[in-house]
């Protein structure tokens, strides 16, 4: 076991780099996080990694919080804190400055073209995450039906998504989705 300080600095550097590489969001760097945490640093097994990932997906809050859990597993509470900050801070500072620049040129024609041009690509990417998440989650036809029903209910009505989530969790808890 290495001293805690070493592990913390490794976490800080790793996640700060990942933060600046995470184009398209945290899910883009999950394979790299896996490689680092399981194969190179041996902080956890493959199965433990998968479980932590599922917890971060299911828990309330942004999905990048899987970084928090990797930090926790590697170096306890201090590790969780360092990994979370490392994953957020660099990209936040960058986004802040670029968005200032972006908003200052609100009326510029190039700014309008970039905004309107990027929008369909952004929507395509959200469709992609929907597809990837559904494929990972829907291991049988019952789970696929849950996904379909929730999608329909939330596309065509104004009910709160929390009802869908609560109902699905309750069904799963009762063993009806296995």
């Amino acid at each position, binding site marked *: 076991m290495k001293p805690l300080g070493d592990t913390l600095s490794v976490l800080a550097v790793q996640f700060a780099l990942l933060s*600046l*590489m*995470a*184009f*398209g*969001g*945290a899910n883009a760097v999950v394979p790299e996080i896996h490689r680092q945490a399981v194969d190179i640093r041996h902080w956890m097994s493959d199965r433990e990694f998968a479980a932590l990932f599922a*917890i971060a*997906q*299911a*828990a*309330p*809050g*942004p*999905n*990048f*919080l899987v970084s*928090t*859990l990797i930090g926790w597993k590697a170096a306890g509470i201090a590790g969780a804190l360092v990994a979370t900050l490392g994953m*957020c801070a660099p*990209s*936040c500072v960058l*986004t*802040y400055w*670029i*968005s200032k620049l972006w908003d200052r040129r609100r009326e510029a024609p190039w700014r309008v073209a*970039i*905004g*309107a*041009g990027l929008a*369909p*690509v952004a*929507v*395509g*990417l*959200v469709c*992609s995450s*929907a*597809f990837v998440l*559904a494929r*990972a*989650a829907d291991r049988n036809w019952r*789970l696929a039906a*849950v*996904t379909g029903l*929730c*999608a329909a209910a*939330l*596309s065509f009505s104004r009910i709160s*998504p*929390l009802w*869908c*989530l609560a109902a*699905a*969790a*309750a069904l799963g*808890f*009762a*063993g009806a*989705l296995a």
Partner: protein
Amino acid sequence: MSEAPSPRQLFVTFLGIALSGFGGVLPFARRTLVERRGWIGADDFNETLALCQSLPGPNVVNLSIVVGARAAGWRGSVAAVTGLVAAPAVIVTALAMLYARFGGIAQTQGALAGLAAAAAGLVVATASRMAAPLLRRRWRLTAPFMLAAFAAVGVLQLPLPYVMAALAPASVALVWRRPG
């Protein structure tokens, strides 16, 4: 945007978004910011999200930075991102600790599986709501890029930076030549 929200309002709103965001925050962010608070218009949301997606870092974190900055400068950004991240980070760590003890139980596994399936449905609905205004107005220009991004990243799982590098300039160039 009606009246610019204060850092305090930003903190509370993003905390609410984060705490309801089971399985992902984006659906709740759009619902709250666009449909309930009206802090940002539907088109502006798509564009802002696109900007956040083309920058590195977690998308929704970037979104909170931009929305916060517009409303109240760097204080707004700090308030929004803290609301979004702090409480969920504590909760997720607590859950991982619980899971380390009780993870093997069948009911827990079942509930997690149900949650994940419903969460996927949420993202599907968000995608359809985001796509609707674009497709209604100028589908000839937008549908090809939507489909191309979906096919490349969702189906073929190509690396995102390459896909962005190929699609974004082409889409922007087309809009540039045929504005309005």
